[in-house]
């Protein structure tokens, strides 16, 4: 597909999914009602539904999708491995452990500990602590392979911590369910507080990432080649790790664990528009947002509480398998 078609196409799809996110939900609202709710309509119910329920949910979904899409591209460029994903270094697991710790200790210290801000904050702290640990563990030698293996080990360790907290809260079914649902990701009950928590910082991190596309292209040739072509590889690697961590941590903090977005979206777009990171980065941001909003629409359509993480995995899993079996 011609790259010049990509931006209009992706923008059109994003506008479509975003509008669909505002238009579809539990309550059937007419186009006029949705429009009225966004302007100065007098329908109180429609105003509350669109402005306080659907709009923040769509904005959070858009930001989380963009963050995970971009983070996926960064991880794949960093490791020069098409199977790398945002959670590879234990960022998601660290974020999960932080959030689960807050949820699990809520009953001990009263629910005050598990307030709206405490959970995302703990998630971000957990994510950064995990990245810090990986970098520290991999410092000697600091090779990509060592970093990757450290991430695998840390993922297992943090996962065990999360499982332990999950079992210790088994008696408190409400807490247990909250943890379980959080681990499966979701955009329901997202409010304007979640928008302020996640969207500005994700936007800033995305903007900081965009100029690094050219350097990422050179990095894909190999560290020595990139260095000889004038890239400060060490600085670039640090920038990429920090920005990827910020994006993944914030996405996890406001939407829980949502897998496969960072893996699937860059691959689809790479296949469609080529591997140039200067284009792939913004495309993946847009594509991630579209994919996540579309998956969220599926969760709204199907009853029985189908979770966002389940939908992304249901779509991402088969794609991943196809990718593995595809003749090279």
């Amino acid at each position, binding site marked *: 597909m011609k790259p010049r078609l990509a931006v209009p196409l992706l923008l059109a799809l994003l506008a479509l999914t975003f509008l669909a996110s505002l238009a579809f*939900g*539990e*309550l059937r609202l007419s186009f006029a009602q949705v429009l009225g709710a966004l302007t100065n309509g007098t329908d109180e*119910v429609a105003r*509350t*539904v669109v402005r*306080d*329920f659907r709009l*923040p949910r769509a904005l959070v979904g858009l930001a989380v999708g963009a963050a995970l899409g971009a983070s996926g591209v960064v991880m794949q460029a960093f490791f020069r491995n098409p199977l790398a994903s945002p959670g590879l270094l234990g960022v998601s697991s660290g974020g999960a452990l932080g959030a689960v710790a807050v949820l699990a200790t809520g*009953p001990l210290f*009263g*629910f*005050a500990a*598990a*307030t*709206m801000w405490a959970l995302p904050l703990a998630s971000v702290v957990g994510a950064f602590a995990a990245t810090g640990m990986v970098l520290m563990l991999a410092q000697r030698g600091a090779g990509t392979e060592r970093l990757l293996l450290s991430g695998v080990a840390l993922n297992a360790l943090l996962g065990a911590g999360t499982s332990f907290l999950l079992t210790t809260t088994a*008696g*408190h*079914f*409400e807490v247990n*369910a*909250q943890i379980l*649902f959080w681990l499966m990701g979701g955009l*329901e*009950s*997202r*409010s304007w507080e979640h928008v302020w928590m996640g969207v500005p910082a994700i936007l800033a991190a995305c903007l900081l990432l965009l100029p690094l596309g050219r350097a990422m292209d050179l990095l894909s040739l190999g560290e020595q080649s990139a260095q000889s072509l004038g890239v400060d590889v060490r600085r670039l690697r640090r920038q990429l790790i920090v920005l990827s961590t910020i994006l993944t941590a914030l996405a996890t903090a406001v939407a829980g664990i949502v897998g496969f977005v960072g893996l699937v979206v860059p691959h689809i777009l790479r296949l469609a528009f080529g591997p140039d990171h200067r284009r792939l980065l913004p495309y993946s941001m847009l594509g991630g947002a579209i994919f996540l909003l579309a998956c969220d629409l599926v969760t709204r359509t199907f*009853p*029985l*509480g189908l979770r966002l993480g389940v939908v992304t995995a249901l779509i991402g899993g088969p794609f991943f398998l196809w990718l593995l079996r595809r003749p090279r």
Partner: protein
Amino acid sequence: MANLGRKQIHHEDRKTGRRTIDQSPLTPWWSFCLRRESFFRILVCLLFAVLPLNAAHPQRVVSQAVGTDELLLALADPGQIAALSHISHDPQFSPVAAEARRFPALKDSDAESVLRFRPDLVLAASFTRPETLALLRRAGVRLVVLDRYDTLEDIYASLRVLGRELGQEARAETVIAQCRARTGALAARLSGVKPVRVISAGVYPFTSGAGTTFQDLCDHAGALNVATEAGLKGHAPTPSEKLLVWNIEVLVASGDERIRGRLAEIPHYRALPAFKAGRVVIIPGPMMSSISHHRIAAYEALARALHPERFR
């Protein structure tokens, strides 16, 4: 035993040294009973005759779940209780925690913890892990699994089953009669009230519809469960937008006062006029989730909160 009741007289011929035994004529049967050694023989026989009757009823009962703790405590003699569930002493879960502290608690809810008390009867609920039930059955322990607790009639049936098992049928009937008297008095107070439109609210993203203990609570407390009215059955994911048009008058939550803060963080609750007006009734968790006759306390608490004019 053939000589029982006959007096034996030993004769010895001094010349020949031969010993003969003569039997005296028949003596009254009660004279045998008066003899000391015979008295003890009879006592032992009677004890052996009576013991199997007592052994028919369990003397070391272990309850594996909180709900069965409540039923057991209501019916059993203290001497029949070997241990209660592992969370029986915790007031966060058990409405009878204070009473339960008089008895040992299981270390865990698994089969090994139960068998440690060498029970002759184990009470479990249908939500007990199947592997635990299988292990207990394999151990040859008598097991009673209570599986119906959605309504008071289910609980009465469980009380009767347990009463029979424990040999406490009369006590079971007394408890049932007391429960009927309490619910009857409550129904009389609420006679003719307009049901208040409520929903079960909480951080758990599910609400209770038809066929749940919450519906049973509403049926007894003068409340109309809007989730059931909307067609929800069992525990269903809590709708968000629909709550705005269900005309909810009061939110009913389980827990303590801190739950208000948690509900305020959930957009679909804080947007409700009922929540904005502070119309949230909080029922203590163990009372709300009780699967025994103790749930009547929850009926009374909710009814009092929804219809205070009937309790003046």
